[in-house]
């Protein structure tokens, strides 16, 4: 079985505004592993995630997800690959405010027919996920997305990332807007569900206290080298 994420000799430089480049000699994450990446803001975590999600391509080297070298794919296929294989959770503003929580959860399926086909009844699966994440059906189906608390929004976002069994879940500071007790709950729920759908979990955070719940914990500064200033 190929690794969930395999990065070799990759380097990337943002063009334009700031001269900021990131290089990674090797990062390998086996399938099914739950990895914690510790990084302060400005440590290159956004850049790393955009490479893993195929939003950007490395200038040299390779970034492979599930055995697919993203740099070899044209932009439209990278978008399709992301839609099909990766679920993303952000720190906040995860949901479209103008559609219901349920529609938010089902949205990735609209962009990826293969992911949709993995489910016989998407609505039922969405409700199963939200129930497992501790959200009531009434809240998911009837509530206005803008009425949800941040904790509820994050759980809806988790359900959206998990639906349709993607290979990889990427979470970018998903708990930073939550209070301490909610953080632990959220992470354990996320872990259980990730395990259930058989996905790999990569979570980035600046909060080292959360690392203990993961299989492995890495410091971003050890993984990636950042260069700033005049290039």
């Amino acid at each position: 079985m190929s690794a969930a994420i395999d990065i070799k000799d990759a380097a990337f430089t943002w063009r334009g505004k700031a001269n900021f480049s990131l290089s990674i000699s090797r990062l390998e994450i086996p399938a099914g592993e739950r990895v914690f990446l510790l990084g302060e803001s400005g440590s290159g975590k956004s850049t790393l995630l955009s490479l893993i999600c195929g939003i950007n391509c490395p200038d040299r080297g390779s970034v492979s997800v599930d055995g697919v070298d993203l740099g070899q794919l044209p932009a439209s296929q990278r978008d399709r690959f992301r839609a099909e294989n990766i679920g993303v959770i952000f720190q906040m503003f995860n949901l479209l405010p103008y559609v219901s929580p349920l529609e938010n959860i089902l949205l990735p399926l609209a962009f990826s027919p293969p992911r949709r086909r993995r489910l016989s009844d998407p609505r039922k699966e969405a409700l199963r996920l939200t129930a497992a994440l501790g959200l009531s059906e009434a809240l998911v189906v009837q509530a206005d997305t803008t009425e949800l608390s941040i904790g509820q929004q994050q759980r809806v976002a988790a359900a959206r990332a998990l639906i349709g069994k993607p290979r990889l879940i990427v979470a970018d500071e998903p708990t930073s807007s939550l209070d301490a007790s909610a953080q632990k709950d959220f992470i354990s729920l996320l872990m259980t569900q990730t395990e259930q759908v058989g996905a790999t979990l990569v979570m980035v955070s600046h909060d080292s206290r959360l690392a203990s719940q993961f299989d492995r914990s890495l410091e971003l500064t050890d993984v990636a080298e950042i260069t700033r200033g005049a290039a």
Partner: protein
Amino acid sequence: MILLSLAYKSLLSRVVTFSLTVFAIALSVALFLGVEKVRTGAKASFANTISGTDLIVGARSGSVQLLLYSVFHVGSATNNVTWQSYQDIAARDDVEWSVPLSLGDSHRGFRVLGTTTAFFDRYRYREGRGVEFAEGQPFTDLFDAVVGADVAVELSYQPGSEIVVAHGIASFTEHDDKPFTVTGVLEKTGTPLDRTVFVSLEAIEAIHIDWQGGGRSQNTISAQEVREMELTPKAITAALVGVTSRLRIFGLQRWVNEYPEEPLLAILPGVALSELWSLIGVAETALIGVSAMVVITALLGMVAMIFSGLNERRREMALLRAIGARPWSIFLLLTAEAALISLLAVLLGVALLYTGLFIARGYIDATFGLYLDITWPTAREYLVLVSVVIAGTTVSLVPAMRGYFISLADGMQMRS
């Protein structure tokens, strides 16, 4: 499909700006179509001022001028037609009927038309509609008069009212020794008839019998005495002529134009009407131009709305990208929004127009004599509607392109 439904829901979430934008475009579309309706209605009303008359005969001048003074009662004839010439024309065997018209006097700002009662039978307007009496009947006595609808309303006349005709068109000398009695009031026609006072040809002769060269002579003749006198007119202003067969119109026209005794002119009313309309037609082009500008302004307002929304929607676009949307999807989403706005606006605009027409049609017909037909949109109007939707979608390509580049640069994180 998902993009269309997202576009729709996104628009609903911004209901105030969205509905204002739709309303602005809808109003502009309704205005444009309304102008179009009024324009074609006015043109039809104008072209329908007189129908059923094959030729108008008058003294030789220009065809538009003859039409203006004989039908529209605008301006004056430069010359008259002698009674003898009129008799010659009326007696021809290709002439089925003829109605003499004698103009020149007025009553409190309204033209007085001397004619025969045949006028009320022969005059046709708006696709063959005849003249109807709202009250009373045609004139029978020498000093009877019939008034048009506007005259009756403005001067509050009814059968039995007594009126005095003034000499000339803007004059203070009145034929006050020979007052008339109103015997009938016509229905509103939307033609110059509404602003006309009708008397018999003999009455015109009678009130002028003791006048010489624009002033009253010393030897006045009373209204009683005049009844005993010979009142055949010496001249008329113009005549409406109907021929026995349409094939003979041109033959008769040539005969009249070549009449040796006196320089005459015969015109086909339809031809002269369209000649006259082509003079007024510049105004209709200007109207269309102005309302087209209003539509363009409204569409630009929509583009401005989409543009201003782009920045506050960067998070939304980044989120869609993270879920798997391509930059092109963002482009299509924004274009779909504009298409939806334009489509809704066009539908609302049509609804506004027809509601307006249903409400205002009777009033417009009664007040301005402008008959607006309520019909399904014409091919030309459908073309306008489709063009608005296409134009709205096309101008939105500019902000959509901007959205495309923003989402390409931002990726799944909104970077400032």
